[in-house]
C-alpha cells in the first residue's frame, strides 16, 4: 500500500471519528445534559435498572422534583450515580443562596432486601460534609431506557485489555479495508 492510500485511509478514519463527535456534541446541546447517554454501572436501582442498561438523559431548565430519576456526580467519586429524588428544598429565587437541595435514594428494594434502603446521605454516599445535592451536581434526568446494550462497556471497564484489543482490531480493519 502506498503513501497516498495510507493517507486516504487515515482521512477516512478521521472523518468517521469527527462525525461521531459532532453527533455527540449536538446531543449534549440538544438535551442540555453533559452526558446524554449513560451506562448504568451499579446495581442500586434494581429491579428497574441493572448494570449494563443504557439511560437517555435530558437536563433542560425545568426544576428537579421528587420522583424523578437523576444521574449525579459526587466529588471524589469517578463514576456517576443513578438514584431517585426523594426530597427537594428550593430556595426562593433571588435569595442569596439560590440553590436547590436534593436528597436522593436508591430504588427501594422489596421487603427483605439489603442495606440500600436509607437515603443517600445516611448511606454516606455524598462527599464529606455534604448533606444535599445541588443542581450543578446533576447531569440529567432519565427519560428513556435501553436494556443491556451497555454490558460491553462494563466488560471494557473491568478488563481494560479488552478495550485496547477492540480499538486495535477496529483500527487495523479500517486502515486495511479497501473501501
Amino acid at each position, binding site marked *: 500500500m502506498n503513501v497516498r492510500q495510507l493517507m486516504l485511509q487515515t482521512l477516512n478514519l478521521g472523518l468517521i471519528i469527527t462525525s461521531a463527535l459532532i453527533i455527540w456534541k449536538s446531543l449534549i446541546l440538544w438535551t442540555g445534559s453533559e452526558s446524554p447517554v449513560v451506562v448504568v454501572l451499579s446495581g442500586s436501582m434494581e*429491579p428497574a435498572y441493572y448494570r449494563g442498561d443504557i439511560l437517555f438523559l435530558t437536563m433542560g431548565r425545568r426544576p428537579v422534583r*421528587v*420522583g424523578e430519576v437523576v444521574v449525579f456526580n459526587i466529588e471524589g467519586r469517578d463514576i456517576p450515580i443513578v438514584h431517585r429524588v*426523594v*426530597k427537594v428544598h*428550593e*430556595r426562593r429565587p433571588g435569595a442569596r443562596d439560590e440553590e436547590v437541595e436534593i436528597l436522593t435514594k436508591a*430504588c*427501594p428494594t422489596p421487603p427483605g432486601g439489603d442495606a440500600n434502603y436509607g437515603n443517600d446521605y445516611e448511606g454516606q454516599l455524598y462527599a464529606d460534609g455534604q448533606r444535599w445535592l445541588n443542581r450543578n451536581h446533576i447531569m440529567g434526568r432519565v427519560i428513556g*431506557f435501553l436494556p443491556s446494550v451497555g454490558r460491553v462497556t462494563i466488560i471494557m471497564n473491568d478488563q481494560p485489555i479488552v478495550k485496547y484489543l477492540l480499538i486495535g482490531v477496529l483500527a487495523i480493519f479500517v486502515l486495511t479495508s479497501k473501501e
Partner: protein
Amino acid sequence: MHNLLYRSNALFTVSTTVLGVMCLLTALTDLTHRPNVRLDASVRSVDGLQRDYGDDRAWLSIKLDLDLRDLFTWNTKQVFVYALAEWATPRNHVNQAMVWSRIVQQPRGARVKEVVRIEYPYALTDQGVNLRGREYNLTVAWETTPVVGALHKGGRQLGGLRLPDDYFRSANVPRGHWRG
C-alpha cells in the same frame, strides 16, 4: 472476495440493524397507549408534629385507593408509584418530600387499597421550624420503566390540606429532640 468473515460480518450488521428497528417499533407502541388509572388518596389523620433537632417533622396516615393495572403493556418492566407532600415556607419556596413508595412489577400488584404511614426511610421534614399551621399538598404519582423506550409518568394532586397549629404526638410517634 466473498469469504466466511465477510458473510458473518454482513449477517451481524443486518441482524443488529433489524434488532434496532424492532426496539424502536416496540418503543413506539407506547404512543398509542392511553392508560386509565385510578389515583384516590386522602389524609386519614395527622399523627404527630414534632420538632427534632431544629427541624419540624410531621407524621401522616394516608388512605390510598389506587388502580394502576392499565399502565402495564408488553413493554412495561415496572411501575414505581409514590406519594409526596409539598409545601412552601419563608425560607424555601418549594419543599417536597416523598412519603411513601412502592415498586410494582406485576399487574396484580397494581391495586393498592390500604392505609399507609410515613415510615423509614421517608420523612416529612422541614428545613427549620415552619410546619405548624402550614398548608400543604399531597400528590400521588406513578412512573413506568419500559423494557425499551421512553419513561412515562402521571399523577394527581390533593390540595387544600393543613397541618395542625401546635406540636403534638400520638402514641406511636417518637418524641422529638428539642435541642439544636
